[in-house]
């Protein structure tokens, strides 16, 4: 089942088409990467999903229904540019944001206690936000985003500005929320994170989605049938006709096959020749490569 469906969404600002017919869906309980270069329309799209702005055209279906006034309570949104009321006390601030998301006072109070315990920041309860370190403020920001147990969590560049320890903490929290059934949309242009964390992805460029699907599937779609072989022994200089050599150094060769099955027969022939195979691996393109590839292509097309 899909928690979120975006159907042919359009959004026009003055004389700039920010979102131009984007369509994709986010399966429930997954971590979903929303990728795209700067200015691709990610933020515009997120603002539509969070109900900050409305789409000119197209539908957003959240949890089986069109977006309406009830939805803010189902969404947690952490913008890229973080912000809190500097003069407010931590606990008061969390209470305020939780109540605005529609939580009752006792529920919000329990949730605040829970997170304070969890992050071990009970002593900060009555400190003003401006007295906290940056890392601390990030934690408060994160708590305020998830305190109302949203069905969908939208994190815009969640790791930017975090030190490695806090980044790890954030990652753990994301996994934990996922395991509890929260769907997480991660907007980023840091491809290695997508590769590491996300199961599904959509790539947006110039307001259009150019690529979407599960990360493995997308990578397979872009694979060039490259294989890396590490071996011991003497490799014959000439290769079969259906196999192309990409690169070779001592004990390692990268080949490209026309058909996947050809790699097996080649491997078989090597083994028969008594060459000792240490490693045989298909080289899949990294998301980064796909990104540059696809974005570069569309740019060239314009």
């Amino acid at each position, binding site marked *: 089942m899909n928690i979120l469906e975006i159907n042919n969404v359009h959004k026009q600002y003055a004389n700039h088409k920010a979102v131009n017919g984007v369509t994709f869906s986010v399966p429930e309980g997954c971590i979903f990467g929303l990728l795209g270069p700067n200015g691709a329309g990610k933020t515009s799209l997120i603002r539509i999903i969070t109900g900050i*702005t*409305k789409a*000119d055209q197209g539908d957003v279906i959240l949890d089986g229904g069109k977006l309406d006034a009830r939805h*803010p309570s189902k969404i947690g*949104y952490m913008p890229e*540019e973080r912000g809190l*009321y500097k003069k407010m006390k931590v606990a008061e601030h969390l209470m305020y944001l939780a109540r605005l998301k529609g939580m009752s006072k006792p529920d919000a109070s329990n949730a605040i206690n829970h997170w304070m315990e969890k992050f071990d920041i009970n002593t900060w309860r009555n400190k003003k936000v401006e007295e906290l370190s940056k890392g601390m403020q990030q934690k408060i920001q994160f708590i305020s985003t998830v305190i109302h147990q949203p069905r969908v969590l939208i994190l815009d560049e969640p790791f930017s500005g975090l030190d490695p320890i806090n980044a790890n903490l954030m990652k753990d929290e994301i996994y934990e929320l996922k395991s509890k059934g929260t769907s997480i949309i991660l907007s980023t242009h840091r491809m290695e994170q997508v590769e590491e964390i996300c199961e599904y992805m959509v790539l947006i460029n110039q307001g259009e989605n150019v690529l979407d699907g599960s990360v493995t599937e997308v990578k397979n779609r872009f694979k060039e049938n490259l294989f890396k072989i590490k071996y011991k022994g003497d490799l014959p200089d000439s290769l079969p006709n259906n196999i192309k050599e990409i690169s070779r150094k001592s004990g390692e060769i990268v080949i490209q096959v026309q058909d996947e099955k050809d790699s097996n027969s080649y491997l078989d022939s090597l083994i028969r020749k008594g060459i000792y195979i240490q490693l045989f691996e298909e080289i899949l393109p990294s998301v980064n490569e796909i990104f540059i590839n696809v974005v570069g292509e569309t740019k060239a097309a314009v």
Partner: protein
Amino acid sequence: MEKLWLIIKREYLSRVVKKSFILTTLLTPLAIVLFMVVAGFIMNYDGAEQRNVAVIDTTGILGTDSLGLKNNKGLNFEKVSGSVDDYKTSEKYDAILELPPIKDLMSKEYEVKYYSSEGILGTGVIERIEGDIEKNIYNYKSKVFGFNKDSLNSLKTSVGLERETLKEGDEKVSSTASIIATGIGGAMGFIMYFAVFMYGMMVMKSVTEEKTNRIVEIMVSSVKPFYLMMGKILGVGLVGLTQVAIWGILIPIIGTIAMYTFGMDAQEIQESQNQMSGMEVDAKEIESKMIQVMAEIKSQNWLLIIPLFIVYFLGGYMMYSSLFAAVGSAMGDDASENSSLTLPISLPVIIAFYIMFAVVQNPNSSLATWSSMVPFFSPIVMPARLAFGPPWWEIALSVAILIASVIFFIWLSGRIYRVGILMYGKKVTFKELGKWLFYKE
């Protein structure tokens, strides 16, 4: 609606619990009263030490038994006989006051000499001595010329212009009443001007702050921008009402306490009046004047003025603060750009302030009537007119126009605000703001 309430509550509470708010609210009345007391004290300052003044009266007008000069302002007068030179080296006297003979009874000039090693006397002291001597000469001359003092006094007639009505049903206004009304009107107009600026700017600053520290994006993912703006306007408005109400109570209380502590009684007022005019004013007259003033203040239709004042306060504040909010939402970090955005909104407030001054002088002029109908001016002009009892239809029309304008400008500002708070790094002009009006949500 519940969310709007939450926002109002935060905006209100976060401000009224601030130390700076509590201090301003409590200290401003103190400062105002203190200022008045200090100003009064300085004006009447007459040096600290006691000085003994030898009075050589060659004319005899100062009387023989009791001296016609009052011992005050640190001066002790003592009548002595002899010449000036006899006392110049005296240890006992610090100064000598010499009244030379009156040569010509018809002369309007008379010079008295004051010998002292000190510098110039305070104007208050000089005026007092001159006044006292003038009074004595007046009595002396009237005696010499054989005038009856009572009939002389009756020569001076105080003329009051009383407005009488032309038609039945026109309201009769006494001249004291119009002075009182001018005072009340001026005060109200001033409070309105001050409130619109201070609280409007407060809204604007807070909108810009939320935008620049980016909390706004989190807020609008929970509530509609319109509620956020309204919550802020209403919350700050309540802060303003609280503050003005506290001042309205505290200033009279502290003022009364100060008046009793620093002894501003009718006697003193009479004396200072005497000095200023050089004329004799009866203490009883002053007292009756005071009573008249108090009665006039009491007789004002406060049951109408106060609710209307609140209506204009809220109306004017809401209209201007919504505009300030709209402008605040468009602002960035560039201070000079920001001030060029604020100016067109501050301008009508300042113009209204000037109109208000003209209007309290002439509350029934066509300027008064017309500016009461212009929503940009009416919140400042109309409260200034209320004490003069403007025709009810003018009040009704003016309030109606104001309410309609409030609704319109809140709607207008809401449309600019929702776009502005999420717009970064763009140079904003009024043309641009106009375009935002027509953006779809």
